[in-house]
């Protein structure tokens, strides 16, 4: 498989050496409940010096809670956390890099790295020393970055650079253990690769790293050992990656017994070409210079590549920002919208993987979240009783377990929230369903559910446009894929039968 060539498995140091090194972190029998819900029951996590440790588990297994306890942001109800053998440890020896980065956007990179080390408010903030401290920390990670961005405001950095700044800050504050919560969720393939190289270098210098990820390929490429949580219990404790295979991992996590690879084989046959059955079929023709693609009802058109290219096309389709480069015809008429609401009314549905910022309406109950799109599409002025019925049907169809339709979305796990976003469009299926990384940060079981839902939507007559950074996913679900190069230009259209992780990697140039 291509991925194994491109991501040479992190050659684990001789096991004996890791096993004999001192545990930098020991969590024993951690218990934690929120109200009546018990989230962690005797969870254990032991991390040794200089190792890269994968912390795995499905959505809701308790990974985030465990991380928050280790980082000291919430207390445990029971059990003990020891760092280098001691229960009274400096909190600064452990640092967490959350997905939602804890940076100060209006301050410079140097200040972000150095400010946490300043305890005396009346001391001068500027000068050479803080700059040098910041430079030293950041150059351990990336020499070029350290030489160029110290005086830049964090707001002006891209996401990958911000992540590196946060890791530098952890190093500057003396962290010996860094926990990374889904660090690659928003990164491109190349950026993830660079991050992994940096992680390996840090591990060699004796820093321990814990990584949470849902991507099996990545875990294989980067981790030495893994710990797996399931329903708040540690079901696999410190197992070397070499002695556990993918199926065992998936099984331990309690996911449906089907790996992504198998599913890729099993998936397509069922519902790839139902277009013939659909009456009133929509036809879509996309053109960008020499690249021309046609899609009809029932097709799933994939977009592969760095965000720039697919982003432009998605923005055009959803009415966020029309693009002058794309010429898109729908049933022979040009498709171009002045606003997202116009697009929605014209039968374009949009689902994002960026739930917090572009998806969930967090202060409105589940009901309003589901009917939000229909209300726009049908120009409803008043909330109606029939909406309740429609919303309940959608929840049932997706087997979303919510305590009530009036509950807040925050009461659902991340993966379920993602299904909620899809539910928006199912009762009144749009002609074109635009998906922007819809499986970002969801576990393998939920991913499978999402694949099924989307295939059904296509089978019922929608054209699905799907952007994903996971090539395995595109290979599994798409009829054709437009690949974009790194500058955002479409370069090639891959047709069914030729869509594999290898061809996608070559076509997008993201194998670097």
């Amino acid at each position, binding site marked *: 498989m291509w991925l194994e060539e491109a991501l040479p498995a992190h050659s684990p140091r001789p096991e004996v050496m890791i096993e004999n090194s001192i545990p930098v972190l020991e969590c024993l029998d951690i218990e934690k409940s929120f109200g009546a819900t018990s989230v962690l029951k005797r969870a254990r996590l032991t991390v040794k010096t200089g190792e890269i440790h994968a912390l795995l588990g499905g959505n809701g297994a308790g990974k985030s809670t465990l991380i928050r306890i280790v980082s000291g942001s919430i207390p445990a109800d029971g059990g003990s956390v020891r760092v280098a053998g001691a229960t009274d440890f400096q909190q600064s020896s452990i640092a967490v890099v959350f997905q939602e980065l*804890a940076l*100060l956007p209006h301050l410079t990179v140097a200040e972000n790295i150095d*400010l946490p080390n300043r305890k005396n408010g009346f001391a001068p903030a500027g000068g050479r020393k803080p700059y040098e401290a910041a430079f030293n920390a950041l150059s351990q990670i990336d020499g070029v970055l350290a030489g160029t961005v110290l005086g830049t405001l964090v707001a002006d950095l891209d996401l990958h650079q911000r992540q590196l700044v946060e890791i530098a800050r952890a190093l500057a504050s003396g962290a010996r253990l860094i926990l990374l919560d889904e660090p690659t969720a928003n990164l491109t393939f190349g950026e993830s690769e660079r991050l992994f190289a940096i992680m390996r270098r840090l591990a060699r210098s004796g820093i321990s790293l814990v990584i949470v990820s849902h991507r099996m390929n990545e875990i294989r490429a980067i981790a030495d050992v893994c710990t797996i949580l399931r329903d708040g219990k540690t079901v696999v404790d410190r197992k070397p990656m070499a002695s556990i295979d993918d199926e065992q991992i998936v099984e331990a996590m309690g996911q449906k017994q089907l790996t992504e690879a198998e599913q890729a084989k099993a998936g397509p046959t069922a519902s790839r070409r139902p277009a013939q059955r659909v009456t009133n079929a929509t036809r879509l023709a996309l053109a960008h210079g020499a690249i021309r693609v046609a899609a009809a009802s029932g097709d799933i058109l994939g977009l592969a590549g760095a965000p720039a290219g697919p982003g432009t096309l998605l923005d055009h389709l959803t009415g966020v920002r029309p693009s002058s480069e794309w010429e898109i015809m729908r049933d022979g008429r040009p498709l171009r919208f002045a606003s997202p609401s116009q697009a929605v009314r014209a039968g374009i549905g949009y689902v994002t993987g960026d739930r917090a910022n572009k998806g969930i309406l967090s202060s409105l109950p589940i009901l309003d979240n589901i009917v939000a799109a229909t209300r726009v599409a049908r120009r409803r002025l008043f909330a109606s009783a029939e909406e309740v019925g429609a919303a309940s049907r959608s929840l049932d169809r997706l087997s979303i377990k919510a305590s009530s339709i009036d509950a807040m979305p925050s009461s659902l796990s991340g993966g379920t929230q993602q299904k909620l976003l899809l539910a928006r469009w199912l009762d009144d299926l749009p002609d074109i369903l635009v998906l922007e990384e819809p499986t970002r940060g969801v576990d393998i079981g939920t991913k499978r559910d999402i694949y099924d839902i989307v295939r059904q939507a296509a089978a019922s007559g929608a054209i699905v446009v799907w952007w994903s950074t996971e090539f395995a996913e595109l290979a599994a679900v798409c009829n054709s894929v437009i690949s974009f190069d790194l500058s955002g230009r479409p370069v090639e259209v891959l047709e069914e039968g030729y869509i594999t992780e290898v061809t996608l990697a070559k076509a997008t140039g993201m194998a670097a």
Partner: protein
Amino acid sequence: MSVLNKNGQNREANVSDIVAAHHSGTAARPALRAGPLVRGFKTYRTEIAIAVAIILIEVVVSLWIPQALSLGNVANVAQAAAPLVIMSLGVLLVVITGGIDLSVGSIFSLTGMVTGLAMSSGGMDWPAACLLGLGVGLAVGAVNGALVTFVGLAPFVVTLITYAVAGSLSFVITNGQSIAILNGDFWLLNSGSIVPGIVNYLFYSIVFIAIAELALRRLVLGRWVYAVGSNDRAARLLGIPVNGVRFSVYVFSGLLASFSSLISLSYISNAETTAGANLMLQAIAACVIGGASLFGGTGSAIGAMLGAVMITVIQNGVNLIGINSFWQGSVTGLVILVAVLVDRVAKVRS
């Protein structure tokens, strides 16, 4: 070579390139920062633009009324601007943390009434009466700070409450009467000279601006203020004393509003129940003109000072030209609009 540039170019460059570049010295230690002149110009771009705008306004006004640029009128403007400048600095601190202080105008009024009453009916010496007046700002500021920081109420709501209460108290304590100040030496607070050769109101303004500017830019404390406004959750995680910072900015804002009231009172010699009515909006406007964002995280002391001076210069100009003073608010509003539009366009461009 910018391997990680924002446009996504050169993404194919890999880690070994970076490391190699680092070791070969091409990337090692370029100048860590630009030269001081360039840096100064970049840092103070907004401030320089406002200063130029102020000079332009003055020049345009002087085309009509030549004495606009006379020493006497400039001194007038400085005298009129001093209380607003000082009040704006306090409001600025709150605005940088992402809050707002609507109570400063009422603090200004109440301080005047309390101080006036202490001197006239209370028969106090003026320094003692002034300390009492500062107590008003301290008390209201502390209430604001405590409710925002420790109770967690929204700054807008909290300071709306203290605005209403302090505003009404300034009527209550004298039953709505204004107080004439007859104390012989009180004028010295504003127009005397602590430092020979510099009149006091100018001296206070300069000292406060210098302290605020240096503290905000050069002290860890000042960077904490920006940190709280930039992302308070992150700031808390980093161990920055968010509560202390937030509480303090409201106290400082109250104290500075009281102090600005005292120097104004010392000049006018008459305590009015509604003396500060217009000042709250002007102080917030001064911060915004000076580049502060009401979302927090940005703003500068020199910017706020220049914003306050600009508002005063416009009022002065409108007066000199002889436009009905009812138009002042409209003109000021337009200027704020232009200022934020220019700022917005500059941001979009960059």
